[in-house]
């Protein structure tokens, strides 16, 4: 399989001394959806901007479709599409004008822009509103228009920097569908960054977890979660504690079980080494054999959040709400100024 993107030892130190990207290496296969997951300030946007040639790396090598970003910026630019974290739509132009201009900047002939433009605007559900000034669009429509603009020249690689930041759940799901369709039907390679772990989990073939400028883990989401090495089974017994002792020691005797802990009265958390689902029937049988009733039983698989916690010792969601509010209010302020 060919690699669409190859990055080796990328380091970016900003002029103010911030070491935003600190020795990052990865490769993205063709037709892959590659997720870059990390909290704000981890260095995701900086990495993207280096890869597509908007920023000059401090050191490291970057190849996009075999071309060196530093030496052949033109080749890279013509073959990629980029939708920045901050939606860059001119809100005093109409949706169509935004798209037309973008097509012109890629030097597409007028007829081609008309054909492609109609196609992407219909695809993204913006065709009816194409002649309205973009300032009248909702946040989700603006984002969709921005992605549509990035697609006008049929790029081979699409870079999406936090494509669903600050959008509602419904719009987010729609954008996920578009992304999957672009890969499925058009065979596009997609590099996306996000700080939503569900997004990385749902979309990516492989995920790189980035923290403070370094990749701390990189694999398929399933493998990453399996790598954590435990599932949690939470059992609530309906009998009181007196007769449980025997059962608990029987459970602990099972080779897969690592730990049994009582969290609340009658609720036990059993940490097992993977495949917790297969253990559930045995737990039920062991309980029944001792005449102990089970009120409910729940299996919790590790999430990417647990993976992140595991590798960094911190929660990915820390201090995130405030920033989203900030971005929303900024979008609002922009509208009001019109």
């Amino acid at each position, binding site marked *: 399989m060919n690699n669409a993107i190859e990055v080796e030892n990328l380091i970016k130190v900003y*002029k103010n001394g911030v070491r935003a990207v600190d020795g990052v290496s990865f490769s993205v296969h063709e037709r892959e959806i590659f997720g870059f997951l990390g909290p704000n300030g981890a260095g995701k946007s900086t990495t993207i901007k280096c890869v*597509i*040639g*908007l*920023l*000059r790396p401090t050191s490291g090598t970057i190849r996009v479709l075999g071309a060196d970003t530093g030496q052949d910026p*033109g080749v890279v*630019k*013509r073959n990629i599409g*980029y939708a*920045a974290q*901050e*939606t*860059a739509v*001119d*809100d*005093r*132009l109409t949706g169509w*004008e935004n798209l037309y*201009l*973008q097509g*012109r*900047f*890629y*030097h597409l002939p007028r007829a081609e822009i008309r054909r492609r433009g109609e196609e992407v605007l219909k695809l993204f559900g913006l065709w009816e509103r194409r002649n309205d*000034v973009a300032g009248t669009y909702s946040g989700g429509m603006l984002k969709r228009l921005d992605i549509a603009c990035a697609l006008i020249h049929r790029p081979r690689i699409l870079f999406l920097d936090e494509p669903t930041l600050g959008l509602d759940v419904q719009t987010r799901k729609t954008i996920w569908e578009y992304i999957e369709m672009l890969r499925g039907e058009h065979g596009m390679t997609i590099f996306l960054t996000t700080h939503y772990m569900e997004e990385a989990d749902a979309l990516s073939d492989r995920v790189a977890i980035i923290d403070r400028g370094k990749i701390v883990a990189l694999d398929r989401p399933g493998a990453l979660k399996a790598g954590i090495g435990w599932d949690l089974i939470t059992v609530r017994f309906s009998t009181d504690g007196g007769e449980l002792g025997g059962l608990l020691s029987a459970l602990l005797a099972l080779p897969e079980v690592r730990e049994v802990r009582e969290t609340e009265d009658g609720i036990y958390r059993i940490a097992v080494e993977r495949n917790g689902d297969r253990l559930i029937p045995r737990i039920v049988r062991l309980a029944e054999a001792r005449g102990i009733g089970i009120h409910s039983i729940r299996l919790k698989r590790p999430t990417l959040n647990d993976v992140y916690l595991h590798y960094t010792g911190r929660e990915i969601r820390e201090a995130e709400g405030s920033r989203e509010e900030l971005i929303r209010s900024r979008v609002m302020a*922009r509208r009001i100024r019109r």
Partner: protein
Amino acid sequence: MTFLSDVWYVAWRELVKFFRAKVRVVVTLIQPLLWLGLMGNVLEGFTKSPYVQQMLGTSSYLSFMTPGIILMTVLFGGVFSGLSIVWDRRIGYLEKLMAVPISRGAIPLGKMLAAAIQGGIQVLVIILIATAFGVRFAAGPLGVLLILLVAMFFSSILSGFSLALAVRVKTQETLMAVVNFLTMPLMFTSNALFPREAMPGWLAAIAKVNPVTHAVAPIRELTLRGWDWGAMYPGIAVTVGLALAIGIWAQWTFRRATAE
């Protein structure tokens, strides 16, 4: 060829927005009406003196002042060109322009072209209004065309300067402050509105090197006297030369400042 296309579409974006903002269009058209109507009439009386007539080279102050108003209008239009860069940077559009395969030099040139076209439209309106007020352009229709061209090159000097400045400046307030600091003195230390002969010696010396004075010379020649290449070419050469130099400088700052 793609370079010219890039320049044109950068300009196209500005022009579409210009014509969409109807209030802006109306204001830019009314402004010269006020200048010509008010100042021209107020000061008309003082051209009754033959001494003043000799200084102005005409018996109509309005005819003397029209070239000055033309330059003042494109000057004030051009200097605001840089604001659009500051704005583009803020909304992320500048980054978008960096990510598409256009030449970075096309960005300032496109915006300069847009400013020149907007300025050209204003100049046409001024000429029409002035004609309605009785000004006769001695060099005829072709002369008017040349006036238009000189004014557009002059506009590019100011817009190019403002754009190059805007690459470094991060806020609109700073840019406005710098630009305002320069434009008024530039205007009033030139002979655009008052003849150099009427100035004190030190001011006349400044006026002599002021680019506004150089640009106004061929326009005034075409307005008051007609075709005299000998009298016009130094002014035209300085204006076009400065515009080209500033155009190159603006492109250079864009290529450099954006490759961080």
